[in-house]
């Protein structure tokens, strides 16, 4: 009987702690025995009041009509304070009293006068209707009060959370308001971005594990027995973490709202974290550019002075052959250093800027040969050469950029090959493209690095210790190839051949545009 009544748990004065929302079977189950006792007490009180009134009315010889009204006072009072069922029981007791003490024949439950029957039925209906209305009004008032309290709680929580400084990390500070405002025993958050678990309060039912498990399984979880509710945090269709509550007074209705709030705040923090990261990256890039520009200026002027002075020494001559050789060495190395500086700067610039090739028809063989010549002069401990029998081809490309890309590949091949080994370039015509291959004997590239060598700032495990470099060379070379509509790949290794082959492919122009010649 009592279990079917919605607000049985509410105390008559409303001072008792009530759940923040109404229909909660788990709550009812836990407190139903107490409620039955309370209802019985109210019925008893109502019945005693009725008995007293009955005695008074009987003495005064009041008729059925007057007594009914007096009874109604008790019933209305009863329904104002108590629930519908106990009020209804009291109403039925009142009918019984009316029937027994005030209708003929007296002291029996029989009714002979049809008018009395009408009076009794009217009384029952009136009493029940009043009881029903009053209880309903009371229930609604209570519901609204509860809703109000719940909203207040959420509002207070939101206010506390929003007042927090947007921090880069999500920690206990973020969870504490959830626990205090809603009186939870423990609250736990799993941040998938960092893989961290945060817990506030004392969990007696391994809330942390359950929260992480819910994230991993991608499913919300409820355990009424343990009083635990875990919800996944979702943003833009992705699960970004999970939040678990233990000991919420009313988990089924509260967990949803709290999770929505947590997800919003969590997303805000994550956005802040991303924005901070982007700002830091932008600042790093700006510093990098500034340093490079300063280097460009600071390096080139002293180099120009060295070159001018060394050249002047030779002009002023005559020098002895050994002096001449040394002056030439100074000049040649300073010039080489100047070219290296220029190349490094250009690579750095291409790394941060969009590559905009200025296309010109060029003979690929002549470009490759010039690059080889330049390397043969400086990389004297490597034999850089062009494979015999290569056919040349015309490509439409930016000569400066293409030379830079090929230089990077040769540079790379020299760096990662054994001393005195060969670095061989080849040119191969294909139906709609030309492939330039750069092969070096040396250590093969481990499979796990094959996809990563073209990444920006990636440097091989060994390279970091043994070979100087910026980690930009291959990245920029590929960027150049792509800007030309071509590609740069690492070729699959041939069996029994140690080393690496990079293939730079460029599209070849269609046949000579005839309209050009005719147009002029």
């Amino acid at each position: 009987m009592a279990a079917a009544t919605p607000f049985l748990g509410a105390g008559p004065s409303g001072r008792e702690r009530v759940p923040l929302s109404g229909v909660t079977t788990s709550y009812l189950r836990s407190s139903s025995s107490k409620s039955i006792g309370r209802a019985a007490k109210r019925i008893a009180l109502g019945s005693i009041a009725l008995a007293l009134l009955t005695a008074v009315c009987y003495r005064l010889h009041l008729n059925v009509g007057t007594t009914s009204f007096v009874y109604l006072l008790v019933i209305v009072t009863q329904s104002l304070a108590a629930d519908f069922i106990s009020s209804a029981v009291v109403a039925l007791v009142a009918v019984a009293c009316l029937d027994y003490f005030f209708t003929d024949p007296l002291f029996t439950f029989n009714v002979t006068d049809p008018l009395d029957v009408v009076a009794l039925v009217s009384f029952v209906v009136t009493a029940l209707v009043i009881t029903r209305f009053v209880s309903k009004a009371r229930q609604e008032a209570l519901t609204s009060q509860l809703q109000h309290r719940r909203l207040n709680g959420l509002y207070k929580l939101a206010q506390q959370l929003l007042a927090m400084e947007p921090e880069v990390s999500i920690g206990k500070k973020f969870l504490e308001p959830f626990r205090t405002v809603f009186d939870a025993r423990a609250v736990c958050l799993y941040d998938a971005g960092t893989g961290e678990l945060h817990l506030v309060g004392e969990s007696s039912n391994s809330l942390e594990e359950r929260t992480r498990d819910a994230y991993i399984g991608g499913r919300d979880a409820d355990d009424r027995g343990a009083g635990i509710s875990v919800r996944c945090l979702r943003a833009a269709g992705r699960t970004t973490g999970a939040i678990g509550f233990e000991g919420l007074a009313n988990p089924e209705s509260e967990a949803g709202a709290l999770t929505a709030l947590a997800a919003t705040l969590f997303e805000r923090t994550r956005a802040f974290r991303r924005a901070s990261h982007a700002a830091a990256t932008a600042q790093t890039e700006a510093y990098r550019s500034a340093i490079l520009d300063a280097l460009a200026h600071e390096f080139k002027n002293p180099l120009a002075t060295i070159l001018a002075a060394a050249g002047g020494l030779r002009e002023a001559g005559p020098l002895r052959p050994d002096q001449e050789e040394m002056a030439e060495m100074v000049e040649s190395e300073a010039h080489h250093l100047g070219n290296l500086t220029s190349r490094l700067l250009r690579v750095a610039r291409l790394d941060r800027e969009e590559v905009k090739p200025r296309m010109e028809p060029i003979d690929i063989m002549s470009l490759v040969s010039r690059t080889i010549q330049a390397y043969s002069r400086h990389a004297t401990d490597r034999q850089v050469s062009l494979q015999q029998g290569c056919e040349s081809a015309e490509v439409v490309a930016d000569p400066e950029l293409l030379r830079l890309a090929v230089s990077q590949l040769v540079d790379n091949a020299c760096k990662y090959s054994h001393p005195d080994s060969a670095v061989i370039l080849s040119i191969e015509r294909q139906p709609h493209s030309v492939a330039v291959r750069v092969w070096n004997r040396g250590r093969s590239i481990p499979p796990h690095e094959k996809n990563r060598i073209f990444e920006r700032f990636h440097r091989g495990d060994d390279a970091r210790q043994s070979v100087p470099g910026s980690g930009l060379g291959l990245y920029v070379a590929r960027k150049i190839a792509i800007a030309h509509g071509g590609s740069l790949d690492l070729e699959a290794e041939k069996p029994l051949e140690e080393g690496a082959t990079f293939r730079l492919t460029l599209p070849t122009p269609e046949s000579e545009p005839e309209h050009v010649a005719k147009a002029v």
Partner: protein
Amino acid sequence: MLPKQSKVLVVDDEPPLRKALRASLAAAGFEVQEARTGDEAVAVSKQNPFDLVLLDINMPGLTGFEACRRIRDLTPRTGIVMVTVRDAEDDKVRALECGADDYITKPFRLRELVARLRAVLRRTQMEQNPKAVLQAGALEIDLDRRMLRRAGKQVHLSPKEFDLLAYLMQNLDAPVTHVKLLRAVWGPEYGGELEYLRSYVKMLRKKIETDPARPEYILTEPWVGYRFCDPSDPESLPPLSDN
């Protein structure tokens, strides 16, 4: 080597570089004077015209470009070589548009600089006595009779091909921008039609070069235009070494 010492004005804001250039260029046979800024260069040129000015682009105060423009107005017959840095390629075109005769990229070898200065000097002297017949290597062009001979044999050129080659040969050793070539040969309304220029240069190379894939006469100046060189002349500009 030169009939009289040519006067060079070295304009750079770096004292050590000025000092090194002064000594080295003097050793190479030039009479050298220095200026620290663009303004100073303009002021010195006003008093005393120079045969050559070596002008750095990046200077505090008046930029190299503006100084170039003013010196060009003051003394039109002075040869101007501008000093650029490698990773600012657009500076080259801009330098030529401001009236510079040539440019050189910092850091440069002294040999390369001297060759450039001499080439500019030769050209400015040539402009004073224009010749009707020009020679370069195996090529001989007769501007009046509109004829080209290669190793004594006449080569047939279309009118546009002839004009293009004549213009390039008249600017021996000097970089000529795409726009300047198009305007000189096709007309003042041209300027962006690089395709025309490329196909004509390609045809010309087929007719005059031994190996059109590795040209010796008409060299490409990346991102700028073309430069006509005389492969038989040791004084002619050596190919730029880079990488």
